[in-house]
């Protein structure tokens, strides 16, 4: 059994305009010491998936309406409030996109790192402070003892994200969820933060769920990749398979819109036309069909099931696995789809 197994997770939000199916039946699993990347455009349900794992969905308006999240045999969705709190920060920890706003400006950095240790490990204020200094040292903050007494505004963006990582890893969690941890950082700092995460993962054996829209990050870190579109997973498999034998036209689109400086220097980027759909009024059939160059009548009427195409590699496309339906070879359907 995997460390974390998520089955048929559905998280919906009730709004005035209707029900937003932010996450609509997603299943995946993560092994110890492995990294799963969840990829997709903004609004595809990546972050809601992550927050659902922590049971941090604001209710109302949000609600996890179905599914199971099994962490080492315990169903997170069946836990009572105090068990969930005991799990947060201790067994599953999370770092967020914007380190500038994710730290509380009026508390010292060391205090904020030590807080989780005090609640989960029962450390005294003094021991927690000492451990916080060790954690800052671990994530590569120079003069950690001094820096622990600083306030967040005295840290640079990269240092703050290091502090966030220190905070998340303080209790040695089984799973670390990183919600676009490098998006708000400079490119050079991005690389440092990713390296740090990889290094700490190797040292501690933490499973990482990396949420990102940056396929470069995925290539660097991920063992497995899940591609999400409109709240559903459209492709799921090992990073190698998803990168080298992508099955879903949406994944092709994502890969095509990635700048490749190794091959065609002047090659133009191929963006995916159109916008992600509204999650209230999801298109009929395959949610991707209005933007898919290969869509046929069947795609409008029939919603494709996620199915295993090759061993351990799943995709939700009617044509995935058919002869000739391969990235770069498939022929776009011209003309209006009925």
């Amino acid at each position, binding site marked *: 059994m995997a460390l974390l197994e998520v089955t048929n997770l559905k998280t919906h939000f009730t709004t005035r305009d209707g029900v937003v199916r932010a996450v609509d039946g997603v299943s995946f699993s993560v092994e110890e010491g492995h990294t799963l990347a969840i990829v997709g455009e903004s609004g595809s349900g990546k972050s809601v998936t992550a927050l659902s794992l*922590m049971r*941090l969905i604001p209710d109302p308006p949000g609600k996890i309406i179905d599914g199971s999240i099994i962490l080492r045999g315990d169903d997170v969705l069946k836990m009572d409030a105090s068990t969930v*709190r*005991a*799990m*947060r*920060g*201790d067994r599953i*920890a*999370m770092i*967020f996109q*914007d380190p500038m*706003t*994710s*730290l*509380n*400006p*009026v*508390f010292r950095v060391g205090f904020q790192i030590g*807080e*989780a240790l005090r*609640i*989960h490990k029962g450390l005294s204020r003094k021991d927690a402070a000492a451990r916080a200094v060790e954690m800052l040292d671990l994530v590569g903050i120079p003069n950690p003892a001094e820096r622990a007494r600083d*306030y967040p*505004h*005295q840290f640079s963006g990269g240092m703050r994200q290091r502090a*966030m990582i220190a*905070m998340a890893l303080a209790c040695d969690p089984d799973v670390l969820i990183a919600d676009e941890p490098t998006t708000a950082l400079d490119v050079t700092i991005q690389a440092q933060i990713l390296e740090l995460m990889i290094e700490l993962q190797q040292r501690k054996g933490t499973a990482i769920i990396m949420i990102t829209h940056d396929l470069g990050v995925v290539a660097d870190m991920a063992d497995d990749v899940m591609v999400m579109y409109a709240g559903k997973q459209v492709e799921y498999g090992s990073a190698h398979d998803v990168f080298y034998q992508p099955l879903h036209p949406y994944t092709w689109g994502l890969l095509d819109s990635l700048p490749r400086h190794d091959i065609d220097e002047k090659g133009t980027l191929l963006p995916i036309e159109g916008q992600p759909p509204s999650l209230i009024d999801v298109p009929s059939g395959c949610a991707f069909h209005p933007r898919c160059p290969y869509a046929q009548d069947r795609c409008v009427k029939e919603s494709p099931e996620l199915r295993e195409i090759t061993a351990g590699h799943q995709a939700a496309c009617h044509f995935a696995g058919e002869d000739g339906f391969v990235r770069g070879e498939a022929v776009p359907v011209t003309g209006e789809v009925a």
Partner: protein
Amino acid sequence: MFKYVMRRLFQMIPVFLGVTLMLFVLRIPGLLPGDPIQLIVGERELTPALRAEIEEKNHLNEPLHIQYGYYVGGLLQGDLGESYQKSRPVTEILGDKFPNTFRLAFAAILVEIIVGVLAGIISAVKQYSFWDVLVTLSTSVLVSVPVFWLGMLLQMFFGIKLKEWTGGSVFLPISGMGNPPDFVHLILPAITLASVSTAYVARIMRSQMLEAMGQDYIRTAMAKGLTERAVVFKHALKNALIPVVTYIGIDLGALMGGAILTESVFSWPGVGREIYLAVLQRDWPVVMGGVVVVVVIVMFVNLLVDISYAALDPRIRYGGAAE
């Protein structure tokens, strides 16, 4: 920090001079009714010799700018002049009244802090609940009710009607401080004086709290596994309190300067009422002295508030000595 405080202290000088100058302008003959010499003489017969003597003693025969010089000179030595009406030094008169004003001010601030902050927190934490609606409605009413009218209403209800209904056994005193001063005399004036600011404090507290609760660092705190109580009362509250403390601090300065309306309605023997009576009697040195002292107090309390900011919000460091 030291440099900052010194700069602020220096900035007080022009404000101080400006206020005294403006008050002095009011003494240009013919601008305000009433003859000060007549006031000083009172019932005695005003002979030319007596007039000359009084003019000489009070420097009233000098041109206005010379009089101003005398006044500021006296001020720097702690002399605010002598009351026309009471023939007592103004410092003595005000010295008697300020402790009473402070008493009332602190009572009112306490009401603001306890009622205003709590109502704001409850209102924010239970947004759109019955309590939230109640707080929102009652604060809207309170900020628009004139203070003197609220005071009279409270007097009528708790002082007169309640006494009638209970046959004279239960009521709250409606004037004075009691002899010796006691707590029950403080209740109605303190509530009246605090009313508008309590409503503002509740509203600021509510909006700041709601804003803080929506911040990313709150999600971080939740993700750490903190209880909701710890998240609200530690992580959100400390951020939300900063503007509230500022408001209360500034209000404390204003209240310590005396509350003319409340003190008058409740016959509270404070500085505000003293200034009000002095205006009625055209007792110029008392008005002038009272206003000058109030201005100085407000300036110093505001400086203290600004300094205490730095203690609450680590992002604020004065004087550029931070990193």
